[in-house]
């Protein structure tokens, strides 16, 4: 157990550093959310129903960045290992595959911290956003809970997207719909009723709810518990699908094939 934890920690630190060195990841994680935060700010500021304004927009745009990092980072994770010629080592090492892959997917979600940080800093510096959150300690708990649950969702993505030939285009396809259906910048009550169950099974819905309740007021405990519960479900699904991928790739000897 302690060995698995040590491996997780080492893998997480290494992959966060590795992704931090990628200009592509860092620029996309920091700049794109700022664009969306800016647009949302002007839309809410100019509209008839300004709501909670910039804090609401900044947090939502930051979460959009986390989802994009997970979607592109975890969705293409195994393919990238294959391109770099490291997939054989990832699978061939003695620890179980899930213990090696999980720190990678949680690291892609952790890179999303740059998104939250950039949108909050941008709001603070450019628009004078007040950063006096109602429950600062719960804010940290909700943020960590969101990142871990999204990292576990990334585990599911990494192990299912690899079975698809054009995983990158699927990533393009899923970016906007999940931003929309999880209510990162809108109220879910505006969406048609049939979208509600889809929202409930996606961690960003509960993650942003917990973060917003902690920042703006409300009870963040239930959304955090939902993040944890969904995280466990994702872990179970990811464990199964990753095992399926490994057995299938070993049987058909297609591990390194592009």
């Amino acid at each position, binding site marked *: 157990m302690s060995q698995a934890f040590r491996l997780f920690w080492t893998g997480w630190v290494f992959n966060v550093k590795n992704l931090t060195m990628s200009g592509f990841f860092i620029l996309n994680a920091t700049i*794109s959310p700022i664009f969306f935060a800016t647009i949302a700010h*002007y839309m809410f500021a100019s509209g008839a*129903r300004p709501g909670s304004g910039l804090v609401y927009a900044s947090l939502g745009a930051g979460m959009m960045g986390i989802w994009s990092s997970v979607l592109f980072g975890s969705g293409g994770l195994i393919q990238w290992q294959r391109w770099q010629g490291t997939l054989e080592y990832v699978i061939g090492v003695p620890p179980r595959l899930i213990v090696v892959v999980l720190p990678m997917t949680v690291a892609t979600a952790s890179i999303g911290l740059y998104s939250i940080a950039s949108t909050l800093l941008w709001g603070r510096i450019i628009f004078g956003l007040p950063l006096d959150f109602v429950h600062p300690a719960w804010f940290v708990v909700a943020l960590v809970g969101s990142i871990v649950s999204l990292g576990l969702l990334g585990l599911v993505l990494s192990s299912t997207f690899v079975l698809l030939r*054009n995983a990158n*285009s699927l990533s393009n396809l899923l970016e*906007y719909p999940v931003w929309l259906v999880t209510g990162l910048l809108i109220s879910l009550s505006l969406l048609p009723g049939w979208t509600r169950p889809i929202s409930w099974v996606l961690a960003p819905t509960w993650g942003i709810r917990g973060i917003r309740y902690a920042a703006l007021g409300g009870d963040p405990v239930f959304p955090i518990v939902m993040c944890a519960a969904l995280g466990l479900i994702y872990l179970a699904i990811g464990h199964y699908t990753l095992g399926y991928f490994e057995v299938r790739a070993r049987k058909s000897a297609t591990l390194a094939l592009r």
Partner: protein
Amino acid sequence: MNSFRLFFVGGLTSYRALFYWLSPTIYIPSLIVAPIFQILLFAYIGRSAGLQSDVFYVTGNAIQYAAIPCLFAMSQTVSGERYQNTLHAILVSPANRFPLFVGRALPVMGNAAFVSAFSFAAGCVILGVSLPAGSIPGLAVVILVAAFSCTGLGLTNAAVSLRVRENAVLSNVIFGFLLIFTGANVPISELPTWMQDVSHVLPLTHAIQAARDLAAGEPFSDVTGLLATELGIGIAYLAGGLALLRVFEWQGRKHATLEQL
């Protein structure tokens, strides 16, 4: 005659060679479905904020999304050649650069116009937006002009790709700027003055305004001024892009950095 052949045949051949990977399984999610969800996202944010009607976001985002094929495909005309180790063969040739690069831009423009028109139509159907029947031919012209002017910006982006390594990031950044500054989602009048000034020299701003005017029932003759401005902006970016290509090509030859990544 040679330049005509280079423009039409060369342009189409190089487009097919550079985008051989653009299969329906990539094209449909990225260029058919994604713009529709962009329209929906901003329409719902607009409803949430109580800012504008759905038609505002359909016109703004459908035309603004032309930037994706224009920016990425045009930068691919340089970075794709570099990736396939054929850039030096292109640049060492004595071919006239105008038909060489502008010929490649023609299919890009056609594709951008199609993406824009399709997402416009789909956005209208999904959100229940009805347009005056008489406005449709005018809107088609607006979309073509918008695709042309944005392709001009795309050519400038392609030239910069001779110097910038992360051209996908650069294209994303330009796309984000256009999303804010062209008034696709926020009325230009609501932006700070300096942003309004910038918006007037960007492609798509005037085309989006023209499309909104037509959708509101104004006659085509009332938007010809906006379209002329949009066309002029497109020509300026196209000329700037060709000039930059010349400068960077010359620098690349001088410093032997054409293939440098």
